[in-house]
């Protein structure tokens, strides 16, 4: 796999814009780019960490929140996905699921090396799916891994339409994470989500996908109102387990129905026998309306 090194954080707004133009042009690649994007010596800006923590409900503490390194990999993901060599159009990609494993507490002061690549480009009942994989290392030691699964509706992937494992696109065999059982029962928390939440998270994450920003821009993309970022919802849910999780654990989430803004939602948590936590975010008025299901534990 070819390695391309980036110096500095990419600016995502222009990338989204050029990807939007590129989406309608012919001549897109049909296989995943055989490229790994790398940024070395990345440092965390304390102000940015604090802003992120505030928006998502984390403490500004001695360790980075488990979802924070996703922001470091996300920029590289967008660079990879916005390019013409990527087989799926970036606008309209739907975040289906996300898995994060943190191997130890990561101090905000550490120098981090970030790698991102794409794999598992396969058919999905509704189109094609792909995994964007990120890895964060400190002094050569992997400390964090993330796998974001996206769906391109109506797109087609090469190979077996029945889905399954990778098909020669460079992906390893990775077990499909089974969706955690939805915890039920009384809510642990009621969330009152303001209309500008998408803009607030966009400001700290760089994810300026128009579906999250304004009612009008969301309507243009087929949503009735702006919707919350999936990774905000995932971050807010795991932040609620502050103090209950070990330093090293895996956080799996599956995104279900879009969480419209503004709205009120409920967080439900349940402790498993193995000490892990199942979480769900559901509608405050309609408990059947599930926005996110997740599991955090070893």
């Amino acid at each position: 796999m070819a390695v391309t090194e980036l110096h500095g954080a990419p600016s995502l707004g222009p990338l989204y814009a050029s990807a939007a133009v590129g989406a309608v042009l012919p001549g897109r690649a049909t296989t995943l780019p055989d490229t790994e994007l790398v940024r070395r010596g990345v440092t965390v800006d304390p102000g940015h960490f604090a802003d992120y923590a505030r928006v998502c409900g984390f403490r500004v503490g001695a360790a980075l929140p488990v979802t924070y390194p996703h922001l470091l990999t996300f920029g590289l993901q967008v660079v990879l996905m916005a390019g013409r060599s990527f087989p799926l159009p970036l606008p309209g990609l739907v975040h289906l699921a996300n898995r994060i494993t943190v191997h130890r507490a990561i101090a905000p002061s550490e120098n981090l090396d970030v790698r991102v690549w794409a794999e598992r480009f396969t058919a999905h009942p509704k189109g094609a799916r792909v995994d964007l994989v990120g890895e964060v290392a400190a002094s050569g030691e992997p400390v964090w891994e993330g796998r974001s699964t996206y769906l391109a509706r109506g797109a087609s992937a090469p190979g077996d339409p029945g889905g399954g494992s990778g098909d020669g696109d460079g992906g390893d065999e990775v077990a499909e994470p089974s969706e955690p059982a939805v915890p039920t029962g009384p809510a642990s928390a009621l969330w009152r989500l303001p209309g500008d939440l998408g803009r607030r998270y966009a400001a700290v994450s760089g994810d300026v996908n128009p579906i999250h920003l304004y009612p009008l821009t969301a309507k243009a993309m087929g949503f009735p109102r702006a919707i919350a970022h999936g990774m905000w919802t995932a971050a807010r849910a795991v932040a609620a387990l502050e103090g209950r999780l070990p330093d090293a654990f895996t956080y799996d989430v599956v995104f279900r129905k879009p969480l419209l803004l503004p709205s009120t939602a409920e967080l439900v948590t349940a402790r498993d026998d193995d000490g892990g936590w199942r979480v769900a975010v559901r509608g405050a008025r309609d408990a059947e309306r599930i926005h996110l299901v997740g599991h955090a534990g070893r």
Partner: protein
Amino acid sequence: MPASPRRAAVIGGNRIPFARANRAYANATDLDMLTTTLDGLVARFGLAGERLGEVVAGAVLKHSRDFNLTREAVLGSRLAPATAAYDVQQACGTGLQATIAVANKIALGQIESGVAGGVDSASDAPIALNDDLRRVLVKLNAARSTTERLALVGQLRPGQIVPEIPRNAEPRTGLSMGEHAARTALEWGIGRTEQDELAARSHRNLAAAYDRGFFDDLLTPYLGLTRDDNLRPDSSADKLATLKPVFGKGPDATMTAGNSTPLTDGAALVLLGSDEWAAEHRLPVLAHVVDAETAAVDYVHGGGARGADHRHSTDGLLTAGVFAVPRLLERHGLSLQDFDLYEIHEAFASVVQVQRRAWEDARFCRERLGRDGALGAIDDGRLNVAGSSLAAGHPFAATGGRIVATLATLLRERADSEKTDQRGLISICAAGGQGVVAILETKA
């Protein structure tokens, strides 16, 4: 340190009548009410110019300018300015926790006398700046150059004028105290009728206590009030039954404005001292502080804390007293029935009933409290016999001082009339899933 420390004496108390928010005390601040209440106490016990060991009090709804609220009250009072003071805050447990703090120092011989209690104004509540505006202003204050300042001014937006409206909600759950209590009431099957009956009894008992002059030595009139303005002497369970539920949803909702405490303004303080200090000042001792316990529960996630097959998934926000009391009983080899009087803070009628129900539930007591069986029942006739928060109102930090002074006075009355030693139990629930409990005793 002595093997067995002496016990601090409760010498007396003083409070102002409690007022429903935005009424009689609408223009009074925490500092106004606390200073007034302290001066009333000083006058009653002839303490003008005295240097006391310390004054400890607090407020739950507190302006940032009031960081030294209690010390400011002392400086404005007739006490010697050389009296030290500090603030405590443990939500509705503040007043009792302050009492425990002062009583412990007296027990250890570090001080000979002290005043404890609290104050709260729901009328003069702090309203915070919009957080975005606040952050810009903080940076503006720290900015060193005009360019920097101009850039920050450019961040100001009209929408930032909208202030942060204070919410009576738990930060981690987003649910109000009433919503939490409604959930717990439902889990424990606390009925509407028993809640309304408890509320009516609270009004009846408080009215009777006023009528017989019980509060003559416990209260200083303030801003035209001589009684708590929430008190309805003619309240009845039938009348309360007509009110619509305000917490909880659907046909199972049982909690109304009548069986829940209203937002209230007020202040209450207790005078504590060693027996020697009381004797030197020729002041009678009402009761002694025997011991206290504070418990906390995981009302947020809870999962797994109970027996796996138990019907409750998490502990209720206001149920920590359920756990604190048996720990205290254990330490003193007492049973729940070894008390002459009980004061269980009526944040909501259901909160009192949940505690009683839990102690009567043998399975719960075995599985969660580690007891052989149920702790048993508490007689209605021994509970909150001079009324409690449902009738008097509940200015959060003031409630502990009201209850300690009330119970100590009641125990003294009974000890004098029945010529037997008296023992009383206090349980006060607090936001954050905490509960403060204490034992008072009076020798005949």
